[in-house]
């Protein structure tokens, strides 16, 4: 069966449509189940996160909150936006620029005690950098004095 131009165009269109539809459906599926949203500590404290939902928590690592038992990989710290604070537990290697008082973004889930169990902790390779969501939520929580 030799393809006439018209016929070929039909194949073209059908092929593209089928491919796009299939890829679109599956990609959307993957998208919906795998996208993670960002929440700041205030939102978390207010119960904005559904239980068991994986999300990103961002804010500042609270000064003096970093606790680790000598020789243990597990570390606990608190993430704050200066209004609310969420306790975080993480087992793994922390990034280079992780430090108290610096901005941080952690991926993970809340456990039943309201503690955030992180499976990934990120800090950027630039000490002036502030994760965008963190900067935004910190700005909201900025203490205003004077006028």
């Amino acid at each position: 069966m030799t393809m006439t131009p018209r016929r070929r165009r039909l194949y073209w269109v059908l092929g593209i449509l089928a491919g796009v539809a299939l890829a679109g459906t599956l990609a959307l599926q993957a998208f919906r189940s795998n996208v993670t949203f960002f929440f700041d500590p205030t939102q978390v404290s207010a119960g904005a996160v559904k239980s068991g939902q994986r999300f990103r928590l961002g804010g500042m690592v609270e000064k003096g909150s970093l606790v680790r038992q000598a020789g243990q990989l597990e570390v606990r710290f608190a993430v704050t936006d200066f209004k609310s604070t969420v306790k975080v537990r993480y087992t793994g290697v922390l990034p280079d620029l992780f430090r108290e008082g610096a901005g941080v973004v952690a991926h993970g889930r809340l456990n039943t005690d309201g503690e955030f169990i992180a499976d990934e902790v990120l800090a950027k390779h630039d000490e002036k950098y502030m994760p965008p969501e963190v900067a935004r939520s910190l700005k909201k929580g900025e203490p205003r004095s004077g006028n």
Partner: protein
Amino acid sequence: MSKINRFVLPLAGFALLVVLLAVGLKQAPEKGIIISPLVGKPAPGFELPDLLQPGNKVASSQYQGQWYLVNVWGSWCVACRVEHEALLQIKAQSRVPIIGIDWNDADDAGLEWLSKLGNPYTRVASDSEGRTAIAYGVTAAPESFLINPDGVIVKKQTGVMTPESWQRDFLPLVAGAAR
């Protein structure tokens, strides 16, 4: 669908993308980079621990009603060392209080720096968490902000302050207002 339409589709898609990018661009200042409150806007308030007198606070409210210069520095900052000389000179020549904000620094390191190089500051606030620096939109130390008696930033210097730039850009503002 007529024939022409088909070839216009990419252009239409691109137009949509441009709208999206433009919206994204409008919101971009809130992302990644921290925007500085523009000159002419009220200075962000702060209340920070006093580096030199532990237990005391340095607060913007204490300087309400007068001119003052906020200088953001850190002992880790090479350019600040360069600027230090200039600040000492400015302190000697002018009556404008200089509030130092020791940014992202260990208090010990900051104190050692001041004792070794001299203290050009009227008061020094310890901003070890970097909150105030964020509020001021500091991207790289040193940065200086001149604030008027109404609490408004009238001038900002990114980078090293020199006696010349102080004479040329800052002092006339203070003097002009006094007249």
